[in-house]
C-alpha cells in the first residue's frame, strides 16, 4: 500500500507531518457516497509537540481543528469523492488522514491546511480489479494513478493585538496575548472560508485587508506546493 507523508514547516514555528493511507473497504449494499463519512481527518496534538497538551483523549482545540479540516475538505471541493468509488454501491476507497503536530509554536491551522493539501496532491492509488464471481479484490501495486485534486486551498491566519493591530502568522506567544483571531482560507480568487471566532470587533477595512493578503499568499503557497511536488522523485 502506498503511504504518502508530507511535512509542512512554517519558518521554525510548527512542524507538521501528514500521513495518509488509502484503505480498501468492502461495504456490500452501501452507497458509494459512504466514503463521504469515511474520510474524517484527525488532528493530533500530543504532549510531544508542546507541554501545553496532556496525554489522553483529544482536547477542545484538537477537536475544533479536526472539524475545521473536515469542513474544509468537504466544502472546498478539492476532492471529488466520487473519484474514490471503485465499484458503485460496493467498494470505495477510504482516506484516513492523520495530521500529527510535531512542534507546536502557534498558527497550527495554516500548517495543517498546507500539510493536508500537499499530502492529497502526493497521493497515488493502486489499480484495483474485482473478480465478479468470487468477489475477490486484487490490487496491483505496480500501477498507480494519482488522486485528482481540483484545487489548492491555502489558509492564512492573523491575530488581533491590542484591539487594533493585525499580525500575520502568529507564534504561540503572540497567540496567548491576542485579543482575537481571523483565518481566511483562499483558493485562487475565491474564498473557501472566513473564520473569525469572536474576539475584538473589527472594522470592515481590517477584514478586507486580511482577505487581500490571504489571496496574495494563496497563490504563492500553491506555487510552492507545485514546485515541491515536481521535485520529488517517485
Amino acid at each position, binding site marked *: 500500500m502506498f503511504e504518502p507523508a508530507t511535512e509542512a514547516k512554517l519558518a521554525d514555528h510548527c512542524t507538521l507531518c501528514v500521513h495518509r493511507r488509502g484503505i480498501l473497504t468492502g461495504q456490500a449494499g452501501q452507497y458509494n457516497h459512504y466514503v463521504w463519512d469515511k474520510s474524517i481527518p484527525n488532528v493530533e496534538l500530543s504532549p510531544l509537540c508542546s507541554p501545553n497538551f496532556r496525554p489522553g483523549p483529544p482536547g*477542545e482545540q484538537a*477537536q*475544533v481543528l*479536526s*472539524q*475545521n479540516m*473536515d*469542513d474544509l475538505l468537504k*466544502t*472546498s*471541493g478539492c476532492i471529488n469523492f466520487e473519484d474514490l468509488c471503485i465499484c458503485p454501491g460496493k467498494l470505495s476507497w477510504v482516506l484516513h488522514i492523520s495530521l500529527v503536530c510535531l512542534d507546536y509554536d502557534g498558527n497550527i491551522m495554516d500548517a495543517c491546511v498546507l500539510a493536508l493539501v500537499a499530502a492529497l496532491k502526493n497521493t497515488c492509488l493502486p489499480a484495483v480489479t474485482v473478480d465478479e464471481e468470487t468477489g475477490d479484490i486484487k490490487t496491483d501495486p505496480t500501477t498507480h494513478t494519482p488522486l485528482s485534486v481540483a484545487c489548492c486551498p491555502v489558509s492564512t491566519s492573523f491575530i488581533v493585538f491590542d484591539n487594533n493591530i493585525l499580525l500575520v502568522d502568529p507564534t504561540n506567544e503572540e497567540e496567548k496575548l491576542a*485579543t*482575537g483571531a*481571523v483565518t481566511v482560507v483562499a*483558493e485562487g*480568487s*475565491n*474564498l*473557501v*472560508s*472566513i*473564520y*473569525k*471566532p*469572536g*474576539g*475584538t*470587533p*473589527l*472594522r*470592515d477595512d481590517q*477584514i478586507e485587508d486580511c*482577505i487581500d493578503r490571504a*489571496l496574495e499568499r494563496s497563490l504563492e503557497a500553491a506555487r510552492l506546493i507545485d514546485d515541491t511536488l515536481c521535485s520529488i522523485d517517485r
Partner: protein
Amino acid sequence: MASFTVVKQEEFEAQQEKGSAHVLRCLTSGLSCLTRQDGSVSLSQGDTTSIAVVYGPAEVRINKEQIDKATVEVIFRPKVGLSRPEHRKQERIMRNTLEPAIEAHLHPRSSISIIIQETEDLGSNLACCINSACLALLDAAINMNYMVAAVSVAVKENEDMVLDPSKQVEKEAKSIITYVFDSVNYQIVTIASTGSFSRVQHMEALKLAREASKSVFQFYRESVAKKLLMSE
C-alpha cells in the same frame, strides 16, 4: 413572558416565494421562561428554537478561578446525543463571541456560566443560539460592553442571497455565512462560513446582514422593555 414579532410568518413566506427573501424570519422570545436560573430565555427564529440560561456571577471552581476577572463558561447541548466535534466548534465560536462582550473584570474570582440547549434546528441554528445567549445575559442583568446580534446569510447556486435561511435553503445553498455584530458600531465580532464564495458575495452578504442585525437589536430592546412592563 414577553414576545414580539418582527415579520409575520405569512408575510415572510409570501416574500420568500417572490424570491427576494431579504427579511428575517419571525422572532419570538420568552424571557425568564424558567424560574431557578439567574437568566433564561427561549428564542425562536422562525421554527428554529433554542433555550439559553445564565448562572452568575456565582462561585467558581478553584482550578478555573481568575483573580482579575470572572471565568466565562459556555456549554452547548445538542438536541440529541453527546456533543461531537462540530458542536465543540460551535461552542468555541459562541464562547469567544460572548466572552469579550461581558464585562468580566467587574466580578473577579467568580464564574458566569451560559448553557445553551438546541431545541429545534430548522436553519440558522448558530445565529439563533448566539442571539438567545445574548438575550439570556440581558435577562440575568450581567454587565456587558456591547450586545451581539447574529445573522446568517445563504448564497444560493444562482448567486441569490437569502437572509436567515431555513433548513431547506441551507441544504441547497452553495455557502452559508454567519455574521455577528456588536451593538455599538456594528463592527464584525464573528464570521463563520461553510462553502466557498467570492469576495463580492462576502461584501454583499455583510451589508445585508448588518442591516438585518439592527432589527435584531431592536427586537432585544422591545423584548426587555416588555418584560419590565409586565413585572411592574
